[in-house]
């Protein structure tokens, strides 16, 4: 009884201060985003001011923000589709391939996830210009699977390992073909795992910065992560409340889905190796 109480005190004592420190920047972004522009630099109006939605309307009507949001979503969607098409079969096969070959291959694919964009962006910039894809969203759609596929294969491998082999054997016994059992038995029960992969792949794409700033040069083709720092900061439109709103709009939904799918993410991420 007393030990339970002590555990709780420890948990609250540690988590609450950390939560305040880690989340404070977002609170302050939110506060700033509701300030009228004139009061942003006013030190006497740190907490007290007349909240306004002017910065949000400025962002939507006078900047390319909605366009960048659309670009990011489009690239994210296309990359998710390509990634699933390639990683679903690979993840399944690696999970079922027993012995050393399957294991080493799985780990090998995962390790390529560690090769950073900052090492590859220079050679890829030449490839992109040879392919005449400069300043096109398709350049990003082509390159992003280089890190989403290893990541997704690893997660899916972890998920598929949790599905008992017996289930498939039963389907085979009932006259189902191997591919048939994959489509009819394995994929349907893996939907939560697949959904997790979709969410984290999408967010990897929305997060990406190095390739996007290297390959995209015109304002209309920018994605969120590049449009905000280049057009809103370096450009003439220097509007801090608007910029804070621009940061919060994608961040809050992403954090909500992360929190909802966290346990599944952990299961897949660590299930591939540490089981």
């Amino acid at each position: 009884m007393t030990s339970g109480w002590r555990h709780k005190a420890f948990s609250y004592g540690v988590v609450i201060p950390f939560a305040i420190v880690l989340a404070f920047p977002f609170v302050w972004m939110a506060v700033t985003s509701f300030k009228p522009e004139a009061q942003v630099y006013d030190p006497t109006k740190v907490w007290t001011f007349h909240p306004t939605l002017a910065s949000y309307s400025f962002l939507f009507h006078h900047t390319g923000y909605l366009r960048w949001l659309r670009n990011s979503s489009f690239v994210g969607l296309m990359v998710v589709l390509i990634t699933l098409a390639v990683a679903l079969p690979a993840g399944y096969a690696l999970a079922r391939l027993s012995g050393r070959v399957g294991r080493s291959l799985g780990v090998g694919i995962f390790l390529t996830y560690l090769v950073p964009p900052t090492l590859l962006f220079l050679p890829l910039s030449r490839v992109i210009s040879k392919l005449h894809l400069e300043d096109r969203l398709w350049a990003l759609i082509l390159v992003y699977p280089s890190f989403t596929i290893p990541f997704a294969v690893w997660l899916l491998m972890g998920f598929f390992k949790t599905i008992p082999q017996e289930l498939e054997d039963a389907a085979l016994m009932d006259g189902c073909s191997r591919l048939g059992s994959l489509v009819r038995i394995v994929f349907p029960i893996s939907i939560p795992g697949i959904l997790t992969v979709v969410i984290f792949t999408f967010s990897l794409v929305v997060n990406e910065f190095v390739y996007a700033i290297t390959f995209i040069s015109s304002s209309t083709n920018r994605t969120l992560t590049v449009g905000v720092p280049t057009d809103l900061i370096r450009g003439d439109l220097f509007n801090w409340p608007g910029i804070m709103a621009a940061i919060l709009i994608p961040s809050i939904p992403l954090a909500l889905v992360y929190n909802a799918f966290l346990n599944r993410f952990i299961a897949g991420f660590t299930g591939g190796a540490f089981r």
Partner: protein
Amino acid sequence: MAVMAAPGGSRKIRLRYLAERRGFLAALLISPAVLFIGVLVGAPLVLAIYLSFTDATAGSLSGKWVGLANFRQELSDPIFRGAVWHTFLFTVISQAVVIICAGLLAHALVRSFRGRWLLRFFVLLPWAAPVALTAIGFLWFYDPQASIFNWFLIHLHLVSSTNPPTWLGTPRAAMSSIITVQAWRTIPFATVIFLAGISSIPQEVDDAAAMDGATGLKKFWYVSLPLQLPIAIVAVLFGIVFTATDMVVPYILTNGGPFNSTQVLTTWAFQTGINSGNIGEGAAIALFMLPVLAFVVVGMLFFARRAEVT
């Protein structure tokens, strides 16, 4: 990888053929992924190594072989040497902070308590939000005229209100600022992986340790810590590689300045390769990240196996 056996007449060979077909199917399912990765990661990596031996520029697209000239040039450049040192500091200090904070947080978050969902949401925020955007937020928090950090510090009488620190304006403060942001944004992910390590310890081990009289710190030191260490190390290795090779935080906050005092390998490679257009030289700079990568890969292979054994 897959060997296809020729279909034969006898039943025995046909059975073997069926068994082999499993391997064939596996190869068929895996090959698109391997192909994709080979073309998009393997080939550019080789191209990067090749380019680093040439004087390729952005305009001409084809470079002349110059041997080790790029490497020699960089090694004698004080900005480059500074960048190597800054990369080291940026990585080691931020990840040391992360280990301590994430270790504490993970142990506090592992048991359920009222309000855990909400608090975990707050803790996850820096990881889930696109870092290129949140780094811009910090540009505002560090703003010389309206820094919220200064507002707090002034009201706590920790700094003078007439001469507050300019966070991104002086070399030392700028380095601390980017390290802080990097630690802030890596803590959640490390916490999540640490958490996985702690919860992977079977309840029986806990019970057995308690039965033998191990409690509190003793139990943590002799039982829990050794068991969760391999996964924790994997998380730290992740942090190292994603920090040493990260460009976003330094690029957005300082872009290497002031006076190259926060120049790291990635920002210097970007400035040399893209802004100045010396692709060959930029590739040579970027290649200095390979040793970090190799170190992390070897470490991961070693500890992932250890983790599996336990």
